């Protein structure tokens, strides 16, 4: 076969399909509490007693249903963190910090943004958003019942 580089044709295509996911009974309750009362609830496993956040209707370790809603503070500690400086299709505008946050009263970590501080220079940002930093939720005024009802968690020491 003759190989001339300029002869390779490219065919454009798109795969952009809207979906509507089911949150289910458990997450729906969790989101209603966030939306209406700015409250965060974990759920306790009746067997191993751990408080799961985000809450799920069963404990996969014990394989039993969970029923006890437990209020969790909207404050906690950063357990791990990364700060993104790249822009990706359909994703939030950089820079943004992603953290796994252990909220007071929860036994697992919630993935969310840490914000409310200047992240533009990573050298400064990594000192503002550190493992061990205490953070508090900053809520949206207009809430829809979604994780983004919390805009981000803000370092408590930050003005």
């Amino acid at each position, binding site marked *: 076969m003759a190989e001339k580089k300029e002869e390779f044709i490219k065919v454009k295509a798109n795969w952009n399909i809207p979906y509507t996911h089911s949150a289910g009974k458990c997450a729906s309750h969790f989101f209603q509490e966030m939306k209406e009362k700015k409250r965060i609830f974990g759920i306790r496993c009746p067997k191993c007693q751990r408080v799961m956040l985000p809450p799920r209707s069963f404990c996969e370790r014990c394989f039993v249903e969970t029923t006890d809603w437990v209020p969790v503070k909207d404050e906690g500690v950063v357990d791990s963190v990364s700060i*993104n400086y790249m822009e990706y299709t359909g994703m939030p505008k950089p820079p943004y910090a992603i953290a796994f946050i252990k909220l007071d009263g929860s036994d697992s970590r919630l993935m969310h943004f840490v914000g409310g501080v200047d992240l533009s220079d990573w050298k400064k940002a990594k000192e503002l958003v550190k493992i061990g930093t205490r953070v508090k939720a900053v809520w949206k005024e207009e809430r829809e019942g979604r994780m983004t009802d919390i805009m981000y968690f803000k370092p408590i020491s930050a003005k």
Partner: protein
Amino acid sequence: MRRVAIIGVGQTKFRTRRDDATHEELTFEGVSRALEDAALSISQIESFVYGTMDPFDGVNSPDKWCVGGAGAVGKPYIKISTGGTTGLTTGIAAYHQVASGAFDIAMAVCTQRVGVGDDAQSILNTCVCPIYERDAGAGAITVGAQQASRHMFKYGSTDYQRALVSVDAHKNALNNPYAHIQVDVTPEDVMNSRMIEWPLRLLECCPRSDGACAVIFASEEQAKKLCPKPAWVWGEASIIDSYWWGERPDLADWDILSLAGRRLFKMAGIENPIKEIDVAELYAPFTSQTLLELEALGFCGKGESGPQIEKGVFKMDGEMAVNPSGGVLCTNPIGATGLVRLVEACLQVTGKAEKRQVPDAEVALAHAWGGTMQLHALMIVGKHKR
């Protein structure tokens, strides 16, 4: 279970884009090379296991598209999709087919075109839960970056130690004609490259690659007849953790990999991994993951990987060569990458690794991970029967 050998391996050159070929044509290329290596004809392959991760190629089930290129029409055919683990899970599935006695000769084949999509991170973001987690903007890089920040915090690993991982990988890739990225880099180059997701910089992250590879498994009886120098499978393990990464005990420790590693070493009869294994091909698209994987598999103690890397323990001429192929950091056709690890492990123990041959390599380990730090697959191959 029966004893199984690998009697042929093949791979294409990996590049960002292979505009000279379609998905099925790339598959044909990879499969043809494995057949050539094994001196077999396609009619001798009894069963096929095909691995890919659909959304990267923008085709729903490219396994259907490429069946002709695999040479599988009219034969048994199973598709595997386990994220980054896919390639090695595909290998394990083909191994099981032969070990169980279901077939005497089976082929694992993987094709992936990460380069045809404009943005792999957006696709990777769809891996996480759409209800609770997707809005937080995490991609695969987030996995490596969170592990890095946590490992630095808990064990004091450094940017320099991670830079050395990149330097060693890039040097090794220079000797691998199939590797995608082939440039020599210094620790300074790595530490001055663009910040992607703190603490990871550009030269600490893998490229997006197009390519295919294939591995042929045979029963002991067939291997004796067909192949003068096979690679013998000593053991394998696969494992899955919870989907929920916020429930991992500590992101600095890859506990689920440790568990899989212990099962693997038991099956393969390995008592002292670093002494008994000559080559480890680890799936580490981000520098930080080499650190966690070395520790999780017991090639060094917890928190010791950084200092050991500084001492050169895992270089080509070190105590155990890590990623002589240049690894995932230099080549990442995601759903094929795990099988590329096995291809390299086989080339090393059969003495076919040419310029990157680790002298006297007799035992090699292949590893892959996938999902939200969720899945692992492992295989050990040896020059001799176990």
